[in-house]
């Protein structure tokens, strides 16, 4: 999850945040990190680029991206070599 945090920071250009400051379970959207719909699209690209996972149903987005932990679990479950 530490790597994932670094990737999120890079993809979303979160210059003011360090990986240590993002807790595993804090909400990423609206509260917590305060991400928005464009960030969600960026995270979909991140999944594809780094983990070769295509999020087929955009409506799954809020669930998958609700926290770093939920993202990590999704990646582990769907990762393709």
């Amino acid at each position, binding site marked *: 999850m530490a790597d994932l945090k670094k990737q999120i920071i890079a993809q*979303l*250009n979160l*210059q*003011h945040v360090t990986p240590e400051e993002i807790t595993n379970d804090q909400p990423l959207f609206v509260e917590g990190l*305060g991400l928005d719909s*464009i960030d969600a699209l*960026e995270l979909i*690209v991140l999944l*594809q680029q780094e983990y070769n996972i295509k999020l087929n149903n955009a409506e799954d987005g809020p669930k998958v991206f609700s926290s770093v932990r939920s993202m990590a679990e999704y990646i582990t479950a769907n990762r393709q070599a």
Partner: protein
Amino acid sequence: MKLYIRATGNISPQNTFGQSSLSGDIIEYNTNRLRSIEPDYSKLIDVKLIRRMSRIIKMGVAAGLQCLQEAGVSNPDAIITGTAYGCLEDTGVFLQKMVQNKEEMLTPTAFIQSTHNTIGAQIALLLKCNGYNNTFVHRGFSFESALLDAMMLLEEQEVTNVLVGGVDEITDYSFGITNRFGLFKKKISSNLDLFSTASKGSIAGEGAAFFLLKMQSSDHDYAVLESMHTFYKPADNKEIQDTIQTFLNGLSLSMNDIDIVLCGRNGDVNGDRIYDHLNGTTFDGTSVVHYKHLCGEYPTSTGFALWLASGIVKIGSVPDAIQRSSKKPVKRILIYNHYEMIHHSLMLVSAC
């Protein structure tokens, strides 16, 4: 119709940010590409929002906010921007990824930031400003069109103030391409020598200059913008001279009433012939001062010129850094510029 320049904000290759006029020494560049001196953006813009802003957007937003801060206006009635090239960095990033990734795995941020109206839109978004918002993208007329729109809006009396600005950036890609068009000198020892080299091309510049314009005067105004006029592809030097004459006649003025001409000579031997001709005719007998050695050549450089002129009439004299023959007090400045001999503009700026 005269308008008052209540406040300014200028980011440029000189130390202009937070300054009302040019002070101190001119910064010297030994290259044909001048870069803006940028402030610490985190002092003006929420860090969480900066991440969505590429360089030109930060420049425009910061200059706009600086201007509003100076004016003591938290929410302007209208925001109008002029930019010829728009958001080149994001355009370049998206194009590059599109080509290299063969249209796969593209990200939305660069795309949405590449649209020309993003600068004006981001200022509105930051301030939650629902007022009139427009962006002009017409080469050497971009800033002038924005000014014209602002002037008409104030005359219509639907608004009491307008934030208007001109912004353009150079990126590595755009510099590489415009260089291939021969717009810039191959070699130059110093920007301070720009007008003493009889060779082709100028030096590349960039900047973001914003102004708060009002119809009502106040005790703190910089200057009066008396009038502005643009003309497109004049047939010959005579048409240029006649147009300048008509412009002054419309204000019941003659060249005798003008203390200095601030002119857009840019060091390109071809384009500068127009200024040479005017120096020997219309401008003969009037002090002529240049500005493009300070900011470089770019389509919205007249924003820098207007900032410089406003500062000069506010103080009442030309800064030492820009040499001038006479030390008469300066109350009235005629700005004349042409961009690639196609876009010609005139502005009359006077003391309050």
